[in-house]
């Protein structure tokens, strides 16, 4: 039983009934319905409560402009909030709920807000909840509970979403008459075309009208045109696809709803985000009808005239039996005629003294009563309109009306004129200009490669839209350098019309500040009185008034209310609308799900996991991984049920006593060569690379031009004019880009080529007193003894017949070798080392042990012990600074700030109790008893328990630290306690370096 469903007509399939539930109650609709049309067919007029005042609200529009019917759709993890019932296609089993109204829609406790609404005027929240500040969290809880348009699901999203990049010559937003004909000319001309429309089928406004094109129903022209486009390979047609964002350089975002209309739990991609780079864009999204502003104009049953026509034509639903049509222009006369044809009685109230043009004759012929020169001033009925008050219109908006008459009705169809949907034009950076002829903002200045066409460009008649669309198509094709194909302009029948007379608000029986509410923005409950209050309180700028009254702040971005609001503001300010201007529109045009924004970038595809060539072995060994940048590095290698602490202690002791091995493949590696490579590296590194002998390595640091340590690593001179540089793991890419930058921009005369070898070589560190014997046992073709392969040397060699490059460098302070090997052989070499080391109990160790071993030696990690504000002098690395040459950052080291005596400097710290492992990041203070805020003198950068030393050790940056050796300061812990710590040298182990030189 669908009381408002017409017997025939509409683009619905009566043979396919669908059942759905709204607020727990079951209803029936048809395939082809939207949720809104099905609700109206069933006579459901109350669909929500308003945002602030909780007034009962009904469906107003038929498309993206709908301010009231914002519903929660679906169940469980797939549910979608903030859905406009007017754009939700009906499917069998659909479940929808109102998002406002508690405990039920009909008995909304918060509707009390409406009774106290004088207290809830514009700025109420700002004024009321500001003081006392301490109560804000309490206020916030209630405001949040009372606000919002639905709930996000709490479960993980079970649906599939994806992104898709696309390129085209011409993108057309909107497939109404203008968009379709623009697409036709572009497509026939051979351009690559994408045409997108938010509705389930192409045709736009023509789907809701009874107009003819070339003496045929307009739908025939749509079918022929879409069939031709469909047959062309160079055209991509996207239905259910909203062009929601227009970004820089013609980058346009479209969301395609692939399965939402079928139901939930549907296989395949639910929504697709199209990221389109278009050479040219045609904006043909049409126009929105404006409501009229009178008392209680928000009552359910007050609808846009065009929406009423749409429901009748497209969905065979007539939302009322006794209709009043209130208008200031001709277009609503078509609605009156449509209503009459659908069997309703109709009275037209036209504010214009002379009424309409030729359409008035047609209305009269249909037996429609017309009251020109009249206005609707108020509405009776609370949950549904039951009548209107009508008065004669004297043309003076500041007057109060008298001598009103009552007309009973169950539907009020209103039209205050039309506003082009300039949203995307505005997003593109284009300017809009007020047209005194059309009484609306129209696209004026273009900022990007686009053109507006059709109703979106202020063309109201079908013939004008077709002409404008054709012109736009030809224009953009020409801009693409393509010759336009022939397209004949179709002919539409037009009737003579009389122009609109602006009517931005309707006077009431009392002054606008005391009369029943006259709503401007339905979704956000902004009324005429609110705008007037804002002006009285001193707001003049449209952007400020917007924020104070929340006008246009809803999820609909004020698609219905904005223009009326601007005009009323202009009236209050005594200015014209053009000088008040309009606010900027921003993406998204209609709300977009987080799901489609994230798409596949969730779970294990959220961030790339970079794996070394030896990763599989670490995984098999059961090592937990530490995330370093995008790399996953083995953190420690637990045996049995060891935890981090015991595992690391064992790994450290084994390495110091016998031998350990680790995967250091993530270090950055750069081949640098060329005639000028020495000169180049002299400028980059702080020490004098020119003094290095072939076959030798050096520890090197590079500084930013500000003198701060940027990166460090080993430099090996492998040939006279060839070096092998290593960087930190995180520095691999940035350092290469940094070096290239200097070569390409500042020193292009230097002949140097850099090649990244980071991924080509895997690096296996073998460290500990027995490391040499392990390599010898594998079978090495070179003499590894100290006399022939000294500390800080590099040599090409073969291990078990496999080519490697051996570095005698040490980050652990032990005798150590770094094996650089083609990544393809790395896993094999890792196993060879493990096998040969078995008799020495070789122990694989991870990043944590590596950190402890280096901290025991006082070696810094750039990015951990430094933070971009630390100079080499702060680190006591003066010995690395060449006095004989310039290098990047050198001049900065003598800036006043860099030679301050109270700079934070690197020191070692020992907890006086010999037990406390200080948390990294702990703040250090001289006097924990000092008045709050306690002055801080430094912070802990590295801190570990050292199994070798049997006590915790730490490194820290402490003000004037270098000259405070043996002083006691305090570590301020999170629990409020202060631990005394002694400042010591950061080199805790083997200060003479005898072990690594062995």
């Amino acid at each position, binding site marked *: 039983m669908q009381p408002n469903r017409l017997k025939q007509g509409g683009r619905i399939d009566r043979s396919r009934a669908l059942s759905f539930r709204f607020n727990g109650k079951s209803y029936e609709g048809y395939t082809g319905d939207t949720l809104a049309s099905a609700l109206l067919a069933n006579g459901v007029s109350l669909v929500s409560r308003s945002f602030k005042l909780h007034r009962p609200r009904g469906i107003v529009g038929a498309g993206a402009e709908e301010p009231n019917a914002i519903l929660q759709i679906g169940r469980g993890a797939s549910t979608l909030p903030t859905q406009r019932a007017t754009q939700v296609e009906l499917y069998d089993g659909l479940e929808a709920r109102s998002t406002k109204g508690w405990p039920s829609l009909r008995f909304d406790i918060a509707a009390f807000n409406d009774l106290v609404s004088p207290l809830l005027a514009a700025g109420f929240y700002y004024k009321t909840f500001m003081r006392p500040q301490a109560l804000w969290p309490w206020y916030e809880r209630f405001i949040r509970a009372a606000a919002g348009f639905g709930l996000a699901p709490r479960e993980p999203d079970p649906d599939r979403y994806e992104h898709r990049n696309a390129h085209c010559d011409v993108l057309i937003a909107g497939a109404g008459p203008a968009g379709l004909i623009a697409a036709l000319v572009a497509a026939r001309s051979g351009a690559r075309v994408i045409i997108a429309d938010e509705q389930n089928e192409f045709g736009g406004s023509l789907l809701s009208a009874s107009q003819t094109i070339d003496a045929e129903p307009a739908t025939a022209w749509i079918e022929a045109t879409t069939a031709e486009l469909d047959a062309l390979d160079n055209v991509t047609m996207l239905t259910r696809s909203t062009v929601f964002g227009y970004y820089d350089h013609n980058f346009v975002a479209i969301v395609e709803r692939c399965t939402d209309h079928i139901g939930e739990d549907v296989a395949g991609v639910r929504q697709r985000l199209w990221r389109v780079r278009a050479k040219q864009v045609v904006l043909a999204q049409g126009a929105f009808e404006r409501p009229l502003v009178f008392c209680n104009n928000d009552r359910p049953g007050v609808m846009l005239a065009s929406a009423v026509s749409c429901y009748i034509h497209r969905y065979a639903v007539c939302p009322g039996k006794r209709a009043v049509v209130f208008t200031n222009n001709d277009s609503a006369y078509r609605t009156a005629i449509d209503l009459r044809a659908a069997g309703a009685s109709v009275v037209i109230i036209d504010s214009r003294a002379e009424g309409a043009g030729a359409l008035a004759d047609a209305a009269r012929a249909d037996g429609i009563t017309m009251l020109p020169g009249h206005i609707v001033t108020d509405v009776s009925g609370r949950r549904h309109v039951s009548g209107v008050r009508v008065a004669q219109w004297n043309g003076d908006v500041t007057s109060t009306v008298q001598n009103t008459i009552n007309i009973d009705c169950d539907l009020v169809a209103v039209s205050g004129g039309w506003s082009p949907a300039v949203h995307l034009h505005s997003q593109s950076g284009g300017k809009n200009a007020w047209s005194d002829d059309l009484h609306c903002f129209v696209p004026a200045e273009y900022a990007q490669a686009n053109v507006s066409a059709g109703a979106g460009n202020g063309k109201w008649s079908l013939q004008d839209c077709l002409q404008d669309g054709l012109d736009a198509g030809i224009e953009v094709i020409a801009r693409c350098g393509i010759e336009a194909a022939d397209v004949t302009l179709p002919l539409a029948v037009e009737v003579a019309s009389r122009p609109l007379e602006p009517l931005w608000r309707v006077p009431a029986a009392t002054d606008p500040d005391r009369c029943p509410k006259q709503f401007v923005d339905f979704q956000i409950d902004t009324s005429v009185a609110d705008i007037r209050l804002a002006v009285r309180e001193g707001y003049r700028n449209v952007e400020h008034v917007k924020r104070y009254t929340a006008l246009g702040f809803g999820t609909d971005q004020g698609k219905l209310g904005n223009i009326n609001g601007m005009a009323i503001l202009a009236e209050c300010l005594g200015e014209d609308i053009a000088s008040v201007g309009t606010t900027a529109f921003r993406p998204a045009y209609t709300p977009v799900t987080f799901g489609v924004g994230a798409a596949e970038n969730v779970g294990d595809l959220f961030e790339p996991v970079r794996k070394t060539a030896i990763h599989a072995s670490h995984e098999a060994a059961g090592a937990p991984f530490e995330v370093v940048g995008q790399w996953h590095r083995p953190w420690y290698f637990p045996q049995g049920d060891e935890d981090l602490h015991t595992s690391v202690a064992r790994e450290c002791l084994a390495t110091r006593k016998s031998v350990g091995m680790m995967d250091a493949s993530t270090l950055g590696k750069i081949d640098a060569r060329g005639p000028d490579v020495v000169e180049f590296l002299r400028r980059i590194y702080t020490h004098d690379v020119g003094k290095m002998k072939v076959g030798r390595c050096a520890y090197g640091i590079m500084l930013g*031009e500000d003198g701060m340590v940027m990166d460090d690593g080993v430099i090996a001179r492998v040939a006279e004019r060839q070096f092998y540089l290593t960087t930190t793991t995180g520095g691999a890419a940035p350092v290469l*880009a940094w070096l290239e930058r200097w070569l*390409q*921009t500042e020193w*292009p005369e230097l002949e140097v080529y850099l090649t990244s070898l980071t991924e080509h070589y895997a690096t296996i560190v073998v460290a500990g007193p027995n490391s040499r014997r392990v390599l010898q046992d594998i079978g090495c073709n070179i003499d590894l003894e100290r006399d022939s392969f000294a500390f800080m040397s590099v040599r090409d060699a073969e291990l078990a017949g496999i080519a490697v490059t051996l570095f005698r460098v040490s980050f652990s302070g032990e005798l150590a070798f770094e094996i650089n090997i083609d990544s393809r052989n790395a896993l094999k070499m890792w196993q060879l080392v493990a096998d040969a080391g078995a008799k020495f109990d070789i122990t694989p160790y991870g990043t944590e042990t590596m950190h402890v071993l280096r901290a025991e030696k006082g070696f810094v990690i750039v990015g951990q012990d430094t933070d971009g504000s630390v100079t080499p002098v702060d680190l006591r690395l003066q010995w690395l600074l060449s006095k004989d040459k310039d290098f990047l950052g050198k001049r900065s080291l003598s800036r006043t700030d860099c030679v301050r005596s109270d700079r934070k400097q690197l020191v070692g710290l020992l907890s006086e109790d010999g037990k406390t492992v200080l948390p990294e990041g702990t703040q250090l203070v001289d006097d924990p008893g000092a008045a709050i805020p306690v002055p801080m003198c430094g912070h802990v950068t590295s801190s570990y328990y050292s199994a070798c030393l049997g006590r915790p050790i730490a490194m820290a940056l402490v003000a004037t630290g270098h000259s405070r050796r043996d002083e006691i300061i305090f570590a301020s812990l999170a629990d409020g306690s202060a631990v005394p710590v002694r400042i010591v040298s950061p080199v805790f182990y083997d200060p003479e370096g005898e072990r690594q030189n062995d």
Partner: protein
Amino acid sequence: MFLIQCPWCGERAETEFSYGGEAGIVRPLEPDALSDAEWADYLFNRTNLRGAYKELWNHAQGCRRWFGVERDTVTYKIEGSYELPSGRAGKGA
């Protein structure tokens, strides 16, 4: 998202590039001869223009070349890209 013309690879999406700040900042030949203020000027001060601005970009996910771009900082319109001249005269200006 910008569409940036790499002088070699052609027009590519902004995501392929990294930004290098103002172009034409020339490193002083003799830093030691400069006062702290003069050095700080080289180090920190940028014109930060409103309007046409010459800046450096690096085609990080492409040919790894640094190049110049003239971009309007108000409209974001890119007037053009250019190779950095080779030799000391270049200076990225």
